[in-house]
């Protein structure tokens, strides 16, 4: 098994490990760095639970090789806010009830963050399209969309 030293900037810190060539970025984050906030769902790129940010763009870590993204900066859910202080987006997910079992939430929050970087004030349709690579098996999409729009400054919706 071919192993090679891997250096990646993860959540702002330079991390190093001896990693086999066939290690996925997801396995590297979860098993080597013990950053288990990134979830393993389908393992084939269809659920979005493993979404991380690569230089600010959303990326599915289960179908990305750890050695395949040299020199890039990775952000996981552990790096989404400041230590001890959640990001506005995370707070919006909480205040709007944008989670049920919570398994899809790390991926949803990161994909939503990437969306808001591209489109700071998205319409409901743009949020739905922007999160279309992320599945919520509790089907709590309505409140997730609401949370993202609230974080983007949209007024509170009355039921």
């Amino acid at each position, binding site marked *: 098994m071919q192993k090679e030293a891997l250096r990646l900037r993860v959540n702002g810190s330079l991390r190093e490990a001896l990693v086999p*060539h066939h290690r*996925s970025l997801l396995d590297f984050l979860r098993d080597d760095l013990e950053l288990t906030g990134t979830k393993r769902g389908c393992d084939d790129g269809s659920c979005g639970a493993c979404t991380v940010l690569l230089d600010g763009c959303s990326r*599915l870590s289960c179908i990305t090789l750890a050695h395949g993204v040299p020199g890039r900066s990775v952000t996981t859910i552990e790096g989404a806010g400041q230590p001890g202080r959640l990001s506005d987006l995370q707070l919006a997910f909480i205040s709007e009830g944008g989670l049920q079992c919570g398994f899809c939430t790390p991926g949803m929050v990161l994909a939503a963050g990437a969306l808001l970087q591209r489109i700071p004030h998205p319409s409901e349709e743009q949020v739905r399209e922007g999160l279309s690579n992320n599945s919520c098996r509790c089907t709590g999409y309505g409140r997730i969309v609401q949370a993202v729009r609230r974080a983007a400054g949209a007024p509170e919706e009355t039921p």
Partner: protein
Amino acid sequence: MIGLPSFRLHRPTSIEEAVGLLAEHRDDAKLLAGGTDLLVNLRHGLATPSHIVSLAEVPGLDRIDCSPEHGLTIGALSTLESLATHPGVEESFPVVVRAARTISGPTLRAMGTVGGNLCLDTRCHWYNQSFFWRQACGFCLKKDGTACHVAPGSSLCWAAYSGDLAPAFLVLGAEIKLLSVRGERRVPLDRFFLDDGLRKFDMASDELLTQVCVSATRAHLRGVYSKLRIRGALDYPLAGVAAAARIAGGGTFHEAALALTAVGPRPFLVEGATEILEGLRANDEDAIERVAHLARRLSNPMNTTWAMQPAYRRLRVGLFARDALREMGERGP
């Protein structure tokens, strides 16, 4: 959890080094671009190379140059998202952007590449499964087995080509460039795809697709791409129709072309459509119906998916073709 099999990863830093590695390892190597197709197939044992040649550090393959004077050239490593959001391509070659926007969702579009989408592996519900699943069914003709479960007795594999970009490029008469240590060759896209889900492409194992080119003479054609799928995002096409045409001042069809995807082992142009429509009024319902019928007749979807019946997919090909021609006649690009 299904782990990735062991392999040696090569990270060439030039295109010459990349084709050199392909020439050295031939069938025992696979190219890695966005990874959205290959890494899934590796997990399922559908590809078992000892060497993976990553293109992540090869510069210069991700440029999109678009102008009405010089036409369109797209580097094979351009991401699907960069194509889907390119204002110049949308203006001059709208059918390409319309097709790109239907692919999966934004995260996968930012990973997947134009070259990867064109060279997508063919898909079938007997094939795109885990090793355990396939083994339990005695494998299939496409991988590890000898019999086709879709067409028992067939010596050809009927797995469906499922790329969305190919039909859009086909209606624009695109060419592709293939590079190897033996040199570069240009291939008209309609001759690149083979009618066999197993062999798929006219491309040797040491060749690298570097560029897609569309002539400036095909700029500003109106274009439509319609895709049949279960969900509004994420899914591969179960049938896809691309159409392009120039609508002359008097409201007549010129250079009209239709191409189909996901209804057979290769995407293909609807032969005869251009001749039927040339010079006819864009509201000629008889001609539109004749072309729609032709498209439906030429499509040959098989039972390669549980999601929809072949008969329904075929029916929708005809409806998509009819609606695309009507839409191009009625309004601008």
